[in-house]
């Protein structure tokens, strides 16, 4: 099994040691909690947007996650992984939302992929085309695969962290990322996988 080489999470707050801010937030310092929100909002929201494909639902879930985190800060164990803890809350909220939607038979309205406002003038036509392909293909992925892949790709989480967020095993997290990448790679470059068996070999 290849070693997980990912680096540890970076300092996210930009204000020094993240653990100090989290400790202050746990002690009730609202300004410290606001800094944590400021540091994590966009990242959590991006992930939830990829899961919901709906801006308003993603914003609701993000806000709900921080509200729950605010209420539960005291229960966070100092020294453990705050990012995984926070994303775990977000994951639970997402699962609850899907459950409620199934119950009400009211699925989220899938939005078309957002316009690529981040693409600068240097973005080539080929890049834009590839981005569109990936954006479309990722919507076709099973949610579990999408969750794991985006935690890996956008957050740079290692498989242990992904497993903690998704409450699964490290091996399953690795498998989901692998399968998601495999599916997207085939869409992006079908000529590189002419005869590939869809299931492939489970990576060692």
């Amino acid at each position, binding site marked *: 099994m290849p070693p997980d080489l990912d680096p540890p999470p970076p300092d996210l707050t930009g204000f020094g040691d993240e653990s100090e801010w989290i400790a202050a937030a746990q*002690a009730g310092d609202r300004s410290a909690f606001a800094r944590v929100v400021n540091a994590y909002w966009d990242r959590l929201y991006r992930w939830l947007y*990829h899961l919901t494909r709906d801006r308003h639902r993603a914003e609701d879930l993000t806000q709900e996650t921080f509200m729950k985190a605010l*209420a539960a800060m005291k229960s966070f164990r100092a020294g453990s992984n705050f990012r995984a803890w926070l994303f775990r809350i977000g994951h639970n909220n997402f699962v609850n939302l899907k459950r409620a939607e199934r119950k009400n038979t009211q699925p989220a309205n899938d939005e078309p992929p957002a316009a690529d*406002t981040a693409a600068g003038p240097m973005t080539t036509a080929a890049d834009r085309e590839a981005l569109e392909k*990936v954006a479309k293909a990722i919507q076709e992925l099973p949610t579990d695969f999408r969750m794991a892949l985006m935690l890996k*790709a956008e957050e740079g989480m290692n498989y242990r962290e992904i497993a903690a967020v998704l409450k699964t095993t490290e091996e399953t997290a690795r498998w989901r990322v*692998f399968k998601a990448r495999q599916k997207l*790679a085939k869409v*992006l470059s079908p000529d*590189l996988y002419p005869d590939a068996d869809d299931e492939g070999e489970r990576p060692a």
Partner: protein
Amino acid sequence: MTCDVARNRLLALPDPTRPTDDLLPHLGGCAACRAVQAEAVRLDALLKRLPVPSSEARKAAFLNALDAAGPVIRTRPVVPSSLTGSGAFKPVVSWLKRIDWKYAGGGVAACLVLGIGIWFLAPKPKGTEPEQAARPKSERLARMVKRTTDLATTAHAPHQRVGVFAEWTADLKGEACDVYKVADREDMNALASQYEKVVSEGVVSQARQIEAGTLTPGERSRVFTDAMKQLADAETDASRLAGEAPPNARDALAKIARTAQDGRRTLAKLAEGKQ
């Protein structure tokens, strides 16, 4: 190592730019697998650039609400941490140190289940100008954060929580009265359900937990009277509006009126010590 094995391992790597030692010999001699590796790297780069609509306005509203809610934090200077070597004073908060979090936490958690549902399900402006949409949403958010903060920071005892939850019911009733002409049935029903939850699982539930002897008769009377007044107002307003509301909102308003009436009657019995 076959190409299939090599490719699968490449796609399973934590970082495709850093192949493991056992892959290097194969990659060195196989141009096709090097192309797969390059595509895997490209894919990861593309994933990081996937477009996502901005959420800045919502984040700012949340931060504002957080800033505006609850009691002012009192800070005091502390000796800088030797770990960081920073010379700057850091704020240390004292306001929550007095709180029995184990006690308050349950209330907060329960409140969140309610409050977040409210935010989720409350009518959201659709297709309106951003400025028009942002104002009522941020007002709702500010109220929700305030209630949550109140429950976490100041409402330690059941009688205090009765007050917070009663104010929350007033918020919800106000919301229903504000939007009943334009909201669709689903949104109004959601509001009515949330109102019912806050009354039954908030106001009434906390009122039941007020222990005898913890309040003077005058204090006890005031707690119950204030909460009953909020519910009576809701009963009156919702009943009146239910008669003139569009069909979409009629049932929901009637439900709010019924809930308020039931809650008020239960509180009256509790106040008299009959339950």
